[in-house]
């Protein structure tokens, strides 16, 4: 195990100064995620246009550095992608966190992949995977505009 791999500078930076934090003015889809045992919570807001492209995305929430950084990086990457692309990226990310050594999606640029791979250190900390994945599952739920809260605990 390697703490430096988990708490890389970019994660600490995103954790401290999360991008796209706050409620988007004119969102049309949203969903909430909550891990009550550890106290992480997130609310993802989406503004989807007629072509199903994510024109704007933001989140509100609180939690550990891993969960905040993961949500921050996610919103950065998803902005401008269409719904299908976004869902494929989510799937790719979840597979990477679980087992895949690298990201495969063609919808991610190399520099975007590099940024996202910063979260791969979480793999070695099974108890923390739920922190990294909460906002991503919540994003999928936001596309569906689901009312029930997402949980990644248990």
């Amino acid at each position, binding site marked *: *195990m390697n*703490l430096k791999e*988990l*708490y890389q500078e970019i994660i*600490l930076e995103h954790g*401290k100064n999360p991008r796209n934090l706050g409620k988007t003015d004119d969102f049309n889809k949203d969903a909430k995620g909550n891990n009550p*045992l*550890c*106290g*992480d*919570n997130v609310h993802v807001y989406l503004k989807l246009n007629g072509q199903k492209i994510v024109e704007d995305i933001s989140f509100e929430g*609180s*939690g*550990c*550095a*891993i969960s905040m950084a993961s949500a921050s990086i996610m919103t950065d990457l998803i902005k401008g992608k269409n719904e299908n692309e976004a869902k494929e990226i989510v799937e790719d990310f979840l597979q990477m966190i679980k087992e895949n050594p690298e990201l495969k999606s063609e919808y991610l640029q190399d520099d975007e992949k590099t940024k996202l791979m910063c979260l791969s250190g979480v793999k070695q*900390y099974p*108890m*923390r995977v739920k*922190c990294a994945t909460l906002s991503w599952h919540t994003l999928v739920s936001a596309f569906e505009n689901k009312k029930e809260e997402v949980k990644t605990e248990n």
Partner: protein
Amino acid sequence: MKIENIKKEFPIFDEKIQNNDLVYLDSANSSQKPKVVADRINEFYTKQFSNVGRSVHYLAVAATNLYENTRSSVQKYINAKDKNEIVFTKGATEALNLVANILGQNYLNEGDEILITELEHHSNYVPWHFLRKSKNIKINFAEMNEDGEVTLEEIEKKITPKTKVIAITHLSNVTGAILPIKEITDLAHSKGILVVIDGCQGAPHLKLNMQDLDCDFYAISCHKMYGPTGLGVLYGKKKWLEELPPYQGGGGMISEVKKDSISYGELPNKYEAGTMATAQVIAFDESIKFMENIGIENIMKHEADLVEYGQELLQKNNSVKLIGSPKNKGGVLSFTLKGVHPHDIATILDEDGVAIRAGHHCCQILHDKLNIPASARASVGIYNTKDDLDKLNDSINNCKKIFNLK
């Protein structure tokens, strides 16, 4: 047995945990086990095993005697008046559920009120919440003050003519506050109110004397007392245990069973339905002997020194904020670190072999009051040393370094 050498009695401290020596600061969650307790479980299963209280063969009689010996040891340890006031349960959680259940069945009426505190562990809130639904009972909360205490005055303020039960913790598992339960019990009894104590954190760390405390019920968690998991003790005044109805039905708790009538067994069998955690009960006798050998006064002195040392250490560490500064404090150091989430703290400390707990510690009401979702908690037991607390502080400093804190 000298407390300075006590670590040697716990085999886990010979293990390397992720290549580190173990600094175990999670005893409020569960304590480690001395070798004598682990060995006793093995010995019972391999050489003496039988179910208790039923058969007449040699092993059954011997096992029954061992099982009842523990009951006598517990009685003596907590100075209960009668051996039959000791009921074994599957944990303190079950003990509290048992009390709430039987009082709900046959003591409380619609509109009655129960007074608990904002310090309570979910185990001393949720069982009473069930009665909100089933019996329309109201639950009131005595408030925690800025020092993380609940005072006698606050309890007195929250008592109403409808208060029938006060259910409170002996020692808060978050702020470490030791509540004045003897005074609270005196006050409650003067108003005809029953007192139920959640003694999970009290029993492992404080001298217990049921006849002096005079509370009506006291719940104990054995795995926090250097004993086995799956076992709790409910102390209940004989009068109540005799008067109130059974909790669970099954074998062992009955006197006579007919198609049209059932009569229940005498105490303590009445509350011990089904095959009990026999090996755990028998091994728990070793935990009590172990604590008696060291002496509860020595344990209290040792842990008070540790808490004082740890408090000073963490107070000097800027960025660390201790939760609660009660005048009378048990072995719990809960804290937050500015800008670092408790789960990140716990992960980083774990890498140094320092085991603490992060989260709401089953006390969401308390954390809501403090307006924080979670906290980090280091808690001490008899095996801890000042060196352990130095390592905790060093590891917190490591955490600050990673997060670029001063």
